[in-house]
């Protein structure tokens, strides 16, 4: 098992290198630091001195991959590639355009993101599974048919509508919770209710329908027929046999998303004014702060790969049939 996990982690390294190379190519080769400087200083009538100064201020004044002027090892280390890309591997993200340390900002903004994403994820999972099980229990009746139709309709509504509609109805009309904002500690609760609720409603269509198919697939299997033949009650069959076996694909399917909860949701956070990583990214995109976008791309990839590894491990944990090779 340990050897398996180590092998999976080693396998992640070339992928991370690949991600790093892609971001480097995107941010420094396709568009040179000169372009970035010109864009920030305004496109027209930018003097060369201003560009040089901007590059110096942001640490982009080194050569891309090879610095011939420096002695020894610095030939390789004193370059943009090493300073701005390789350093991401040790989570040294550098400074943003406004001079703040990106690593520090990320460590601060992670928690509000998590405060929304984690409740949404857990409560959502519970709601979706309950709904799916309900439809599976009443399969081929009107409850099931209308449940599926409701799911498809919920799926077809843009996620933006849930946010705008929810804000309007609950905050503006009923004045139950504030429209947006965030507070530390216990006071955060009233700000978190609405985004969590909307997050759950937004996902209910697609997820419930998917889980329903999984449960129906399990219901069609032989061991369920055996359980029924033994004379077990339908609820026992459903909870003891169908739910348990159906959880394998569901859990392994959602494990990959767990590390990404740290990143938060771009849209939700920006609508609700939550100072998390999602709104951090949105603001960076808006102000064209390439350093932050680059860091978030790398961080997101790392978390995704961790999610993949966790998925593989969870497979082996919940399903003994899968042999480790």
């Amino acid at each position, binding site marked *: 098992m340990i050897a398996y996990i180590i092998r999976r982690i080693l396998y992640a390294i070339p*992928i991370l290198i690949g991600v790093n190379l892609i*971001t480097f190519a995107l941010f420094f080769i396709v568009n040179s630091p000169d*372009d970035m400087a010109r864009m920030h200083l305004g496109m027209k009538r930018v003097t060369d001195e201003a560009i040089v100064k901007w590059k110096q201020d942001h640490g982009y004044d080194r050569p891309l991959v090879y610095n011939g002027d420096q002695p020894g090892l610095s030939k390789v280390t004193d370059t943009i590639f090493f300073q701005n890309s390789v350093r991401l591997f040790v989570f040294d993200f550098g400074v943003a355009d406004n001079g703040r340390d990106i690593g520090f900002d990320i460590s601060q903004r992670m928690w509000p993101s998590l405060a929304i994403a984690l409740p949404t994820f857990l409560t959502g999972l519970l709601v979706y599974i309950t709904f799916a099980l309900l439809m599976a229990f009443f399969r081929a009746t009107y409850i099931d048919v209308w449940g599926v139709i409701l799911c498809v309709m919920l799926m077809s509504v843009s*996620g933006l509508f849930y946010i705008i509609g929810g804000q309007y109805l609950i905050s503006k009309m009923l004045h139950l919770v504030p429209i947006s904002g965030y507070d530390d500690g216990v006071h955060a609760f009233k700000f978190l209710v609405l985004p969590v609720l909307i997050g759950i409603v937004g996902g209910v269509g697609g997820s419930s329908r998917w889980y329903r198919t999984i449960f129906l697939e399990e219901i069609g299997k032989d061991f369920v027929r055996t359980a029924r033949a033994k004379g077990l009650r339908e609820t026992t069959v459903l909870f003891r046999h169908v739910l348990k076996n159906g959880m394998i694909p569901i859990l392994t399917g959602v494990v990959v998303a767990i590390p990404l909860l740290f990143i938060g949701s771009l849209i939700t956070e920006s609508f609700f004014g939550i100072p998390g990583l999602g709104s951090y990214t949105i603001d960076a995109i808006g102000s064209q702060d390439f350093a932050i*976008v680059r860091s978030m791309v790398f961080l*997101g990839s790392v978390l*995704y790969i961790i999610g993949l590894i966790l998925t593989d491990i969870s497979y082996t944990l919940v399903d003994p049939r899968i042999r480790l090779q």
Partner: protein
Amino acid sequence: MTVNGFLSHNRTVLYTAMALLAVALCLLLIMLVAGLKPVYLWTDLLIYLLLVIAMLFAAYASQHEHLRSPWLRVRHSRLGMMSVVILLAYVAIGLLDSVHFRPPAAHQERSTATTYTGEVLTILDVLLQPISSRVERTYSAPFATHAYTKETIERPDGTQVRDFPRLEFGGAHLGTQGEGAARDIAVNVVIAVLAALVIWAVHAYVIVLVLAGKHKTMVRDQVRAVAGGRTELPWREIMLTVFLVILAVTLTVQLGAKYHIFGTDKVGQDVYFQALKSIRTGLVIGTLTTLIMLPFAVLFGIMAGYFRGWIDDVIQYVYTTLNSIPGILLIAAAVLLLQVYMERNADAFNTTLERNDLKLLFLCMILGITSWTGLCRMLRGESLKLREMDYITAATAMGVRHMVIITRHILPNVMHIVLIAIVLDFSGLVLAEAVLSYVGIGVDPAMNSWGNMINQARFEMARDPMVWWSLLAAFIFMFILVLAANLFSDAVRDAFDPRLRARS
């Protein structure tokens, strides 16, 4: 198969192709006669290409039983066929909006060559002329005769009052104070419903006549069969949806010219017109993205599964790497870089229209790069299974070349997966456009799209009283399209997925 056999099998497809070609030729002729100068945008050309590919695929599918029979099953699905009608209506609007041309300038110098206005129009613009050209000064509510905000108005006697000014076009045929608007709207709605009923009745009668002729039954029996839902195809549901589409058209004709059905936006543009123009953007994103990524996904997926070994390793590595970058961040990074690139090469684009069009195409490419991995992985898995089949072993033993095995044995057998993926992706992409435009990394803000409408509307939400109609119009148009696409994809998947078929 001989040419004759091919023709007889594909008569419907052939006729449709000829009809399309004829329409295209007529359009070109009309343009030449009217002195219009056609403008070919990149996305236009790709849409035409997509149309041709769809025709070719239809011809191909009609000859191959394993593709034909699922489609016949799709035709029997009630919800599926209803959504097809809706989708066709959207596609028709999108196609009308994809023929761009420049009208000639009004005042021509005799001696010089014909000059054209800078404005590029589409057929849809021309058809909706009364709606598109009626620009108010600022916000007005749906069906309003007066503006939404008070302004200082100068009375004829010289005094000034603060009041809601009368709209220039909204309900312009009514009196100076817009009296009797409610009654006028009701009358127009009744007229529209009656007109729709008449048009629909004619259509329905023709369909019933054709059906009766085909089945050699009495017309009256055929009417009963259709009304009772006892026909082979779900004609009752199809006709119902067709009626709704016709009603939408007649309502537009009756009311759109006299009122602003969905109000006007900040600069007085008709919101209903914007929502209609946005259809093209939504369809382009939903279809061209798949068209662009499809060759790569199919090629790499099959190659990885078929050849295995180091080719498999490399391809798996590439898609895992691309997949591990969060999609929205990759899109954001790429679009940011595109903006830099476009501003650097601002001279390369003749008009803003061309620039926005290329931007849209580039967005499709980026979306394609982030979305091809799923299909690629599925195709790899399927090819891994297929290559162990006896007929492939036999082909290999007989020395058939790899390319031939792939094109003749593997490709046809993974076609259904490709098809399901195309249909499934569509609705997700349409919704993604809105989110991306909201984040500011979507289509150009100057372009008509539902995402841009929502994006602009979010500032209007804070106004008091609120301006809600842009938002509502965008959501309604999007919802209908995505719902139809979802229902259609359900029908397609049910028809193509053998596992589901065995169970039911």
